[in-house]
C-alpha cells in the first residue's frame, strides 16, 4: 500500500505540475487570443496582401501606438505603395569598394536592426585578388588596421532582390513576396519563423531575430514602412528591402548615400536614362551564382 502511494504521489504531482506548465504555455496563447483588444487584433491580423485599405490604416495606427509605448519615440509607419512604372535595380562597383563597412552600420541605423543580438543585413566579404569571386576562401571577419588590404578586394553581399527568388517559394505561409517595383519584402506579422527561406536563400541575405530586438532610443529611425524598417519581432525573419521607406519616396537607399567611394548605384530599370541602365549599357556586369537562375537585380561591375 505504502509502496503504491510513494509511486503514485510523485506521479500525481508531476501530472499536476505538468498541467501547470502546460497552462503557462497555453495562457500565452490565450492572452494573445482573448487578452487585450490590441493583442487580439495583432493575433488575428491577416497577411498584409489580403488587407483592405481601411484595415491597413488601422494596423498602421496600432503599430504606431505600440512602438511609441515600447521605444518612447514617435514613429510613423507608412504603407506607401510602389511608384508606377518602377522596377528597381542595384549595381555595386567591385573595383571601387574598399571594405570600410560604412554601409553595414549605416544600414543598421537606417533600418532599425537589432543591436543586441547583433544583426547586419550587409555582409562585406574580403576576397583574394588571385582567386576572384570565391566564397569558400572569403573572409567576413577581416580586421585590419586599414583597408583595402594588400592583395584583396571586397564584395559586399546583401539581398540580391532576385526576379526568381527561392525564398519566396520556400515560405509555407506566403509571408514573403516580390512587390511590383521589384523588392522582396517580408510581412513580419505573418512570418511564423520557420526559417525555410533562410535555408533557401543562396546569398545568406535573410536574417532571423533569434532574441528580442534591442534598439538605442537616440539612434532609432522613426520614419518607417510596414514592409521595411519598422521595428521587428523576436522569431521573425527580415532582410534588405532596398530601403523601401526611402526608395518609394524617390530617395536613394541609405547604403548608396554613405558609401565613401561611391561604389553603390541604384535606379529604375524601366527608365532608360537611369544610372542603373547606364551601367548595364556601358559596363559589363556580373551576378552572383548565376547558375542557380535566381536572376538577381543586384549587379556587380568593374567601374575601371
Amino acid at each position: 500500500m505504502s509502496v503504491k502511494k510513494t509511486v503514485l504521489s510523485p506521479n500525481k504531482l508531476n501530472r499536476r505540475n505538468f498541467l501547470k506548465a502546460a497552462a503557462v504555455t497555453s495562457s500565452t496563447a490565450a492572452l494573445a487570443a482573448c487578452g487585450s483588444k490590441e493583442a487580439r487584433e495583432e493575433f488575428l491580423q491577416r497577411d498584409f496582401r489580403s488587407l483592405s485599405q481601411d484595415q491597413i490604416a488601422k494596423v498602421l495606427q496600432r503599430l504606431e501606438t505600440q512602438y511609441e509605448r515600447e521605444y518612447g519615440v514617435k514613429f510613423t509607419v507608412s504603407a506607401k505603395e510602389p511608384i508606377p512604372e518602377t522596377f528597381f535595380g542595384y549595381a555595386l562597383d567591385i573595383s571601387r569598394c574598399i571594405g570600410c563597412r560604412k554601409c553595414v552600420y549605416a544600414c543598421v541605423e537606417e533600418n532599425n536592426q537589432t543591436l543586441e543580438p547583433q544583426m547586419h543585413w550587409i555582409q562585406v566579404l574580403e576576397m583574394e585578388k588571385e582567386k576572384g569571386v570565391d566564397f569558400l576562401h572569403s573572409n567576413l571577419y577581416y580586421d585590419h588596421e586599414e583597408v583595402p588590404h594588400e592583395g584583396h578586394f571586397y564584395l559586399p553581399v546583401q539581398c540580391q532582390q532576385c526576379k526568381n527568388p527561392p525564398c519566396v517559394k520556400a515560405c509555407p505561409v506566403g509571408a514573403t513576396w516580390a512587390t511590383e517595383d521589384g523588392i522582396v519584402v517580408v510581412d513580419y506579422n505573418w512570418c511564423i519563423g520557420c526559417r525555410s527561406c533562410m535555408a533557401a536563400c543562396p546569398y545568406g541575405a535573410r536574417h532571423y531575430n533569434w532574441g528580442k530586438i534591442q534598439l538605442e532610443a537616440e539612434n532609432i529611425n522613426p520614419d518607417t514602412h510596414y514592409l521595411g524598417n519598422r521595428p521587428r519581432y523576436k522569431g521573425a525573419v527580415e532582410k534588405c528591402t532596398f530601403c523601401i521607406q526611402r526608395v518609394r519616396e524617390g530617395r536613394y537607399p541609405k547604403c548608396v548615400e554613405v558609401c565613401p567611394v561611391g561604389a553603390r548605384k541604384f535606379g529604375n530599370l524601366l527608365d532608360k536614362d537611369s544610372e542603373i541602365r547606364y551601367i548595364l549599357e556601358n559596363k559589363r556586369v556580373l551576378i552572383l551564382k548565376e547558375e542557380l537562375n535566381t536572376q538577381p537585380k543586384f549587379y556587380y561591375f568593374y567601374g575601371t
Partner: protein
Amino acid sequence: MKKFGLATGFIAVFLVSFLFSPRMLAQQDIQVPPPPLSEDFFPCMECHADMDPNPERRVLEEFHDDIELAHDEENRWCMDCHDAENRNMLHSASGELIKFEESYKLCGQCHGPKLRDWKAGIHGRRTGMWNGQKEYLLCAHCHNPHSPRYESMKPEPAPLKPGKIK
C-alpha cells in the same frame, strides 16, 4: 591628410561644403557643393598677385611645402593646371581658364571616360533622389588633385561571429 592639407588650398571640408547652397552645373541638372578650398589660402591672388610666376621644377620650401606631387609627376608641374597669370583659376591644356568650381573640366581632359561616368552618375558618390535632384561631388572632394589615389582608411568593426551572438 597632411599632404592634402593647408598649403594646397584644397582641404576636405565635406561637412561644411554640404551646408553651403549647392550650385547648378551649367549644362546639366546636377548639383555640386563648392570646391574644397581652404579659406586660409584662397583667393590665391592675395599672395600671388605680387609674385613673379616661377615655372621651374623645384623643391618648395617656404610655402606649399607639404604638397607631395604624385599625379603623373614626371611630366607635370604646378603651371600645367594652375594659371600662371590668374592664380584664382585653373586652365585647360588649350589655355582656357577654368574655375575651381568646374575643376572636373580640367580633370576630364585626361580622364575622359571617368568624366563621362561621373556625369552619368556612375563614378563617384551621389545623394538625393534616384528619380530627381541629385547631389554630385567634384573630383577634388574625394581625390587630392596632387596625389589622387584614394586613401586607405580604418574599417568599421567586424561583425560578431555567430558563436558570439548572445
